[in-house]
């Protein structure tokens, strides 16, 4: 993902802005890091350049 996506990306839960932490770049691409909600503190991982904005209860799910 590029930083331009950050401008419109929001916390799925409370729609507040996200802050990028521990970012790893490949040129202009952010390939890894964590997006942290400035309001509720919830953390969303970026893996292989793909941010995972699932609410935490859906992210943690394990196969039935």
């Amino acid at each position, binding site marked *: *993902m*590029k930083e*331009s*996506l950050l*401008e*419109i*990306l*929001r*916390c*799925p*839960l409370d*729609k507040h802005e996200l802050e990028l932490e521990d970012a790893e770049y490949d040129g*202009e*691409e952010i390939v890894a890091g964590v997006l942290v909600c400035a309001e509720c503190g919830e953390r969303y991982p970026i893996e*292989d*350049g*793909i*941010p*995972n*904005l*699932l*609410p935490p209860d*859906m992210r943690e*799910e394990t*196969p*039935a």
Partner: protein
Amino acid sequence: MRLESEWSGMSVREEFDDWAASGRDKGMEERHWHTAKHALARMPVESGDVVLDLGCGSGYAGRALRDTKGAGRIYGLDGSPEMARNAAGYTDDSDVAYLVGDFDTLPFADDSIDHVWSMEAFYYAADPHNTLSEIARILRPGGTFYCAVNYYEENVYSHEWQEFISIEMTRWDREQYRAAFREAGLYVGEQDTIPDREIEIPEAAAFPTDDWDTREAMVERYRELGTLLTVGVAP
């Protein structure tokens, strides 16, 4: 149609990660393209616009909008990490990005998206009314939501699909789609069914086939009913 899964209580992530791993993202792309391309062609996307593809699967639709209309940035959202990973693998375009997220909690700012597209995905939303409100929230005024589905009440041939999928599907009719869009605060710009004129329909002698009892049924399903498109416009 085969019984792909008889598990119950699977999540969107589990069900569709499975599909992605077995290459069904590409199979869907091929079949859905027959009608999706006609709906995509109608979208009032201007060069530079930001488009969100909800339940993007392989991500073909967004890439087509970038190629044909010069969309500025394309975001494909999918609840399945494997789908998003596959989609990302099909393009090098740095103005196309994929993310993992759920229809019910869209991770975007108010008024931040010019147009939303969704093909054969909307009815998987756990709370479709809430998803529509979320779409209305993130669209800028005048932005459109192009919602295309093959699974809908008037398409009687689609009703049995629920048996093969562990996620609860919403089966609205045409009028329910229009009413739900309006309830969520979207204007309805158009509603249409788009026939699939490309799928090959064998001669009568070939029926029954594995999937179809009669040629008439297959003709009705594809050439007459086709894909239901409902277009919402944000006020």
